[in-house]
């Protein structure tokens, strides 16, 4: 399973990469929304997008809307966000995000959520 992680904070990105690699996923990472868009346009075999909502160049919301709108993809999307940004989260859900997790996050919880989403997506196909 291939996961695209889009996160501008290096430390968080490394932690996510490490945790998810350990869980057996293949990881592609992007440091901003624009690079993630490019990767998503070029690669069709990505199974899940894990994205931060606040990023430079292109925000997480724009990335979700690009994925759901332009690329017409049903790939599961998990958002990483801060506490207290409920409105943004609601906006993201409206745009088509599937789940979200708030920072600080428990890496085990994240792994479980991702696993659940991927399984759900696989069974629906």
């Amino acid at each position, binding site marked *: 399973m291939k996961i695209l992680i889009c996160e501008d*904070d*290096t*430390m*968080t990105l*490394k*932690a996510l*990469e*490490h*945790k998810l690699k*350990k869980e057996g996923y293949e990881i592609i990472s992007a440091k901003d929304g624009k690079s993630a868009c490019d990767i998503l346009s070029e690669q069709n075999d990505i199974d899940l997008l894990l994205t931060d909502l606040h990023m430079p160049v292109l925000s997480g919301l724009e990335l979700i809307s690009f994925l759901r709108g332009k690329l017409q993809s049903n790939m599961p999307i998990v958002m990483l966000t*801060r*506490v*207290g940004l409920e409105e943004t989260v609601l906006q993201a859900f409206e745009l088509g995000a599937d789940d979200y997790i708030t*920072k*600080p*996050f*428990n*890496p*085990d*919880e994240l792994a479980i959520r991702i696993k659940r989403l991927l399984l759900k997506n696989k069974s629906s196909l």
Partner: protein
Amino acid sequence: MNKRFIQLRFILNIVLITFISLIANLPVYPASEKESAELVLQRERDYEKRIIWGERFFSLHLDALALKQFERANKIKPGAYFPQYRIKQVTLRLNQSQNRFVSEFIFDFNKPGFLITALILVIVFSITSMVIALATALINRNNMMRAEKRKQYLLEEYQTMLVNYLFATEINQEFISKIKKISNNKFNRRILIDQMIDLSITLTGEEKEKLKNLYLLLGLDKDSYKRAMSRKWHIKAKGFRELAFMNIPSANKEIRRCLTSRNDILRMEAQFATIRLYPDNSFEFLEQLKKRYTLWEQLNVYETITFHQLNLPDFDHLLKSTNDSIVMFSLRMIRIFQLRNTFNTMLELLSHKSAEIRNQAIHVMGALKINDCLPQLKRIYKTETYENCLEIIKAIASINDESMLGFLKLVLDKEDDVQLQIEAAMAINKLGIKGSDTLNKLLTSDYKNYQIIVKHVLDKRIN
């Protein structure tokens, strides 16, 4: 005989003239000689003048001008020694200046020597200082760039190391000894602490515990403690933050002492640390605060509460604070966290001496849609300030209770202020069908001309 007489007469004339001249102190010259004596006098004055000017120019090192003056003086008195002596000196100086044109061009300002020397010293000193400053700046910049490069390199390395450690299933002793070796250096330790703080903000659960244990194992808590005890406020503030994030309550006394610090940033960091580190009495400082609790501080505490999902303080109790800014903060928090159980204390605030607090209390009651406060709001309406009256109408509109229709109609009818009338009409409109019916009736009523206000309120393009 006649010839002898003439000779005698001539001699007598001369004797007489000489005598009279002596008496009159006049030069004893005949008419033509007098003229020549005046000429001599004139030349003497001219000579003196040339010498004086020549000397002036000479002392000012205006050699060309001095030479001219002395040459004229020499023409007037060709045999005089002094002009010739000066001509020699000036010519010598002029020759020297021609030979040393460049140096003279730089140094000869036609000023006294000591001034030139002083100026030269000042210039040399300035240039030297400038060169030293420039060199220092360049060296510093170079050092900073090197430090930054090193920091970047270490950041990458430490991030990978820490992540590897945190997600490893077993504790890697090799890693522990390697990281211990690294943390011997103060600079490296600093970077390591920053990275660990970064990670502690992002992660929770088992990994965070592991991170804290590593922090303690490397003795980094001692570094943070030292910083917390530093005399410099900015270092102290950083120390507080590190201890708070790593959940190490060692600097308790110092943190509590700084809760009343005059320094806003330090005080805020102490508040943040207190909230994070001492959950049992984390908001105790709000009760003790005598100073104005700034909006910035309020925002920080609010952010800390939400970000770390902390238990809320007893805002009901804080509403009774003598510090108005604390009361305002409590009211804001009551609104945000929808704490309706504080209603009774909020009612008491409607008779608070501060109009601003009364206004905020009315606003919060409206925002929380507390119906029970309506009779009280109605009662105080007459005695309130204009701003608070507006807030009361807005609160009533927000609570949206049909029982207030009569009161709102009264406001619309009795008030002269258009803004109050508009707010009242808007509140009526919010009451649903009953409200809009009332407004439509008022629109056709001849009793008073409400038409403009009601039309404005009913205009969907505006409201």
